[in-house]
């Protein structure tokens, strides 16, 4: 929605698509919010983003230099090491004054440095799963579980591969009963929108402000207590 002009503008880099109408009024900006799409390499993150984005997904890179012990990184060499992580992201203008960004990012543990930054202020995360490589999503699940960020699991079903029921996936991933699991196809917009709706619904469920819901911090009270964590 809301593409005001598609004229090439001198301010637009070559190949850039037309500006959304809110981009041309610098007196005010829409509210901006984001959802993180996480999962292993090749699971379909960029495809997912591209299925709903109003712009062709853009790619950006973060470079990170680790110094010192590299306590949590088995790949870190003593002294100094550099890690580059690429993110693909897309954009959806939900309303004249509300824009949603979708950030697709790989889930390996060595990229966690970037997630701390990326998830700040996020609505939540979609953890994408390929049942042929189930273990690829473990680090992402661990990260969002321990950080208390609302998440849903989206099984990207590749046709011609065995189709698993949500319940079986839930069990194999040791998910809490209240974590939504969807079987979907990242290439199909309708399933992607459904997944996003489910995540936002989940975020509302665990958001403070509803009487009788214990998960005021985003982590169900019992689990938070059992783990002795202080949800951020």
């Amino acid at each position, binding site marked *: 929605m809301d593409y005001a002009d598609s004229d090439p503008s001198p301010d637009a880099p070559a190949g850039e698509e037309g500006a959304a109408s809110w981009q041309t009024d610098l007196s005010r*900006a829409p509210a901006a*919010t*984001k959802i993180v799409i996480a999962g292993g390499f090749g699971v379909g993150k960029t495809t997912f983003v591209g299925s709903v984005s109003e712009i062709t997904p853009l790619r950006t890179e973060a470079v*990170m230099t680790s110094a010192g012990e590299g306590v949590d990184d088995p790949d870190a060499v003593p002294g100094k090491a550099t890690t580059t992580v690429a993110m693909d992201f897309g954009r*959806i203008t939900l309303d004249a004054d509300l824009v949603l960004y979708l950030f697709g990012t790989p889930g390996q543990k060595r990229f966690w440095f970037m997630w701390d930054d990326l998830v*700040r202020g996020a609505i939540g995360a979609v953890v994408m799963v390929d049942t042929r490589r*189930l*273990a690829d999503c473990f680090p992402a699940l661990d990260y969002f579980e321990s950080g208390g960020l609302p998440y849903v699991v989206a099984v990207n079903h590749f046709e011609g591969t065995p189709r698993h029921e949500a319940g079986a996936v839930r069990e194999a991933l040791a998910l809490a009963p209240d974590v939504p699991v969807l079987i979907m196809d990242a290439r199909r917009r309708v399933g992607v*929108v459904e997944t996003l709706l489910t995540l*936002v619904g989940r975020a509302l469920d665990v958001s403070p402000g509803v009487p009788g819901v214990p998960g005021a911090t985003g982590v169900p009270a019992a689990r938070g207590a059992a783990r002795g964590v202080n949800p951020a």
Partner: protein
Amino acid sequence: MTTAAPAPPATARVPAQARAAAPRRGGGPAVRRSARVRPYSLTGGRTRFGHVLLVETFVGAPAAPRAAGPGPDVPAPGPGGLASRVLPEARAILGLCRRLRSVAEVAALLKMPLGVVRVLIADLADQGRIRVYGSGHTPGRPDRALLERVLSGLRRL
């Protein structure tokens, strides 16, 4: 359901809650953060003067007035931040930001690493040459009102 699909690969995953008692390498998020040195550090996503620069934060810079001497595209001389010393990049950012852009869009369109772009934008913002727009909602986890707006926006897609 006519055929029973084979069970997913039986890879054992120990949920985070079950591992809480076990010692964890790195000792949790606090250590994880402090043991890292970011190449260009912004504390909590904030610039020196308190602008919040998340990946989705909008920035914009109105076009420089023409023939009026050094406009905002020309950095002020004297001691400045990184943006004053890396002129072409700072100028490219200002040019791009005549349209409203998110920080991530600036990095992607200029093919510059996110961390570098954030520091340049932070410098430009601290010098008053680029405007950093508020997120339009309270910092931290989105509140219920925002989530409801996102929900109805998605339903209209």
